[in-house]
């Protein structure tokens, strides 16, 4: 089923190198191999992008626009960006490439037994220097894409997001050359989420690594990720997998599939659901367990994105959408607090007196 330009991301598949599928896809593949419940997906390899970009006419046109970039003038960067993106996404895609991507999507639909499976189309950058930056939302993601044509459009859109204004400015500021840039794309089955959000395998407030923080909102996870809603906040003990604290947020709206099946709908949440916890204790524990497993796979504290399918109960309906290394506390060693070395009577005296 594997073709020249696409690779299925699932356990058992012969692993393509990260520089072929990009960081995001490589990460998902690793999770799939570790048995984590990642949605079905395939990668459009960086070769596809390179094939497109091999056209000297396109390269020349992009190069010309790029020469106008002034990294300190954001308005110019925006103009340059939209001009290049127009060039890239408007460039005709070679037929063999189009066929491969369409075949990849149809295979996904066949596998799931559903025509026009809704997918998320995500950029998966390959440049080492940029993997960190991509987490800041440097590159684009297109959600709830259905049908071959829409998928192709979304892939082109992701390719072109190599030249978002932010990416342009970032590369200029960090001296990253445009030569050798590449962009793979991840096409991933999309879960119609009842509840979704993020989790972190430490408490970001104090660096306590014995905790998992779960944040959740109704519907798809994007409003939580972008900070548009105040999510529910659950603190879970990572060792015992026991919730220790819950703060219910204010989920003013949710992002859900539109009733006609086309695209997404951002709608207000009624008062009752807004203030009600969007997860049960058992679901919180399942999500924490998932985060803990991801940490074990990654060998370092992780931030994950997860979703709970609308029509399935917790363990079977839980999907891991993404997992990446936590970077703030992980650079420090261990936990924040130190305990003095005395034990026995001296330790007790100190503990009791606080001296």
């Amino acid at each position, binding site marked *: 089923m594997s073709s020249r330009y696409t690779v299925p991301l699932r356990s058992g598949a012969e692993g393509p190198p990260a520089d072929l599928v990009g960081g995001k896809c490589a990460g998902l593949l690793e999770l799939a191999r570790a048995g984590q419940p990642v949605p079905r997906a395939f990668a459009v390899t960086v070769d596809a992008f390179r094939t497109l970009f091999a056209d000297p006419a396109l390269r020349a046109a992009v190069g010309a626009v790029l020469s106008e970039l002034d990294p300190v003038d954001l308005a110019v960067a925006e103009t340059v960006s939209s001009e290049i993106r127009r060039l890239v996404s408007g460039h005709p895609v070679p037929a063999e490439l189009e066929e491969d991507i369409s075949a990849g999507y149809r295979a996904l639909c066949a596998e799931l037994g559903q025509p026009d499976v809704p997918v998320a189309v995500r950029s998966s950058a390959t440049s080492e220097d940029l993997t960190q930056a991509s987490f800041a939302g440097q590159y684009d993601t297109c959600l709830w894409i259905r049908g071959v044509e829409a998928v192709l459009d979304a892939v082109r859109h992701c390719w072109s997001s190599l030249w978002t204004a932010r990416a342009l400015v970032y590369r200029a500021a960090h001296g990253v050359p445009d030569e050798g840039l590449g962009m793979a794309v991840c096409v991933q089955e999309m879960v119609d989420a009842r509840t979704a959000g993020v989790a972190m395998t430490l*408490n970001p407030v*104090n660096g*306590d*690594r*014995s*905790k998992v923080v779960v944040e959740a909102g109704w519907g798809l996870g994007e409003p939580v990720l972008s900070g548009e809603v105040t999510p529910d906040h659950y*603190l879970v*003990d*990572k*060792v*015992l997998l*026991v*919730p*220790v*604290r819950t703060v219910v947020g204010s989920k003013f709206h949710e992002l859900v599939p539109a009733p006609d099946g086309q695209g997404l709908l951002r709608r207000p949440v009624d008062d009752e659901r807004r203030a009600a916890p969007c997860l049960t*204790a058992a679901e919180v*524990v399942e999500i924490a367990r998932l985060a803990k497993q991801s940490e074990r796979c990654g060998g370092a504290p992780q931030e994950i994105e997860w979703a709970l399918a609308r029509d399935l109960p917790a363990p079977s309906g839980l999907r891991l959408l993404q997992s990446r290394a936590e970077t703030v506390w992980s650079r420090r*060693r*261990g*936990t924040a*607090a*130190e*305990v*003095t*070395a005395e*034990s*026995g*009577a*001296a*330790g*007790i*005296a100190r*503990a*009791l*007196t606080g*001296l």
Partner: protein
Amino acid sequence: MATDTRTAFPSPYELPDPPGAEGWRHLYPYHLLFQEDRREADESAFWFCDSQHWPSVIKPFETIGAEFAVKCLGEYNTRYFLVPTSYGLERRIHQGYCYLSPVPAPADRVAERVPEFERRAGHYFGHWEQLLAHWKRKVLETVRELEAIRFAPLPETQPAEEVEAGAGTGASDALLTRYDRLIALCHRGWQHHFEFLNLGYAAYLDFFLACRRWFPDIPDLGVARVVQGVEMELFRPDEELKRLAKLAVELNVENRLMPADPGAHTLRALAVSGRPGREWLDAWDAARDPWFNFTSGNGFYASDVYWRDDPSLPLGYIRDYVLRLLRGETIDRDLPGLVADRERITGEYRELLDPAQRPVFDAKLSVARQAYPYVENHNFYIEHWTMGVFWRKARELSRLLRSAGFWPADGDMFHLTRDEVREALFDHVNGWASGSRPVGCDYWPPEIARRRRIMAALARRRPQPALGVPPPSVTEPFTIMLWGIDEERIRSWLGGGSATGGLTGVPASPGTAEGPARVVRGPRDLSLVQEGEIIVASVTAPSWAPVFGKVRAAVTDIGGVMSHAAIVCREYTVPAVTGTGDASTLIPTGRRIRVDGTTGTVTVLD
């Protein structure tokens, strides 16, 4: 949301007596009562009801446990080990229940106590096993001496040989001396009890507080599961029951254990049933001493029934185990599983620490694990064994005085304070000496009847959770750990019980379960517990272990994560919520409930 939240608990000076209980104050010694001339100080202090140890009304004689235990606890903190911040506890009996008030060490004495504490406690931690072996010898000697006490009727006359030998003293002197010795040995037992206990808790606390620093929101349960032992002497009696159940099946004598009301007659029947029966009885006898010096109570009540004295209890449990064996169930606790679980949890927490902190973790954990088993095991030696013998001897004396005409029923003596018993005993020997009818024979029967009515009136009312004025903050770690009293608990007491069908308490043993509630008001109700029920009690004793094999979950009114119920439930992997405040009064037997021992919630389902 509570609408009329109080800021203080009732004053003991203003709490009206329960109807019919008037005059209860005369049944207790002056120093156990809230006295009018100390009103100002006592009213502004905070007194919590220790219903964990004294869940029901305390008869006058039974104050002995409260007095000796609380005195010895304080003595070790204050005078032996000089625990820097804590002295002992003040104690009062009010309307039949025991209230305690922690006494902190004065702030200006704390610093000077530290080096002495380090020296003395450090010595104990450094010589723990050796000192504990010595302790065991002391306890066994106390038990042996208690066992040797006999309360025999006075002879009609002193034997001629003794008179002629010039002994000069005889039966009356011996009787008085034995009583004094009985009381002194009881005191000594409580002295033994606390020699290691406070240090055991302190070692636990040290590790607990360190964990709180490393992992700020670590659940209490996490620390408990890291420290707690698996094979403890406290569980040995239950292990012996299981062993006897298996042996019965092996020897094909299990049918003889099946009657609905097993008892001494069951044992007699086995004795004449042939060789296998006798072989089983030998095993029974071997287990009985010392392991059936074990009560379903807690050692503080004269009514506590000890297995050794009433074989119907252990035989009933053995029958339950036999039935489960015949159904093909395993009755053994999953010890390897418990050990593996403990090591996994320990390893995971340790792994999360900065490598430089791991040796600190190891050192503190090793002290805690060394010291902690005592916290459970001492129960067998003191509450069960020593106090079992003590109560047996005390009952012997009560029967002696009953046959001397002092009161009509076997256990009536316990309606007297122990000093009144000394007086009655003197009255008795004086009657014998003078050849006249003791005054007590006329004085005590109506007085005991009156006291019985007062006790019944007191028992009709539940105690207040606390009295007086709560402190602005609870920082004393022992109070928090042992009695589960913290600011939140006090707030919930002040706010009154919630009526929403949901109860919260301490998540004490993980897991969830649903089933019909069985409210158990005391050890006597234990026989009512059916397979698959959820036990709901004011407080449980460790010796209820055998019923934990058949219940789905446990809920208690009182106790924290280190309470007996919590420990036993974790040992038997039964979900538990402790310290709910009033589950046993709000939930009736038969009501279906859901217990979530992981989050600490109890939900009434119908």
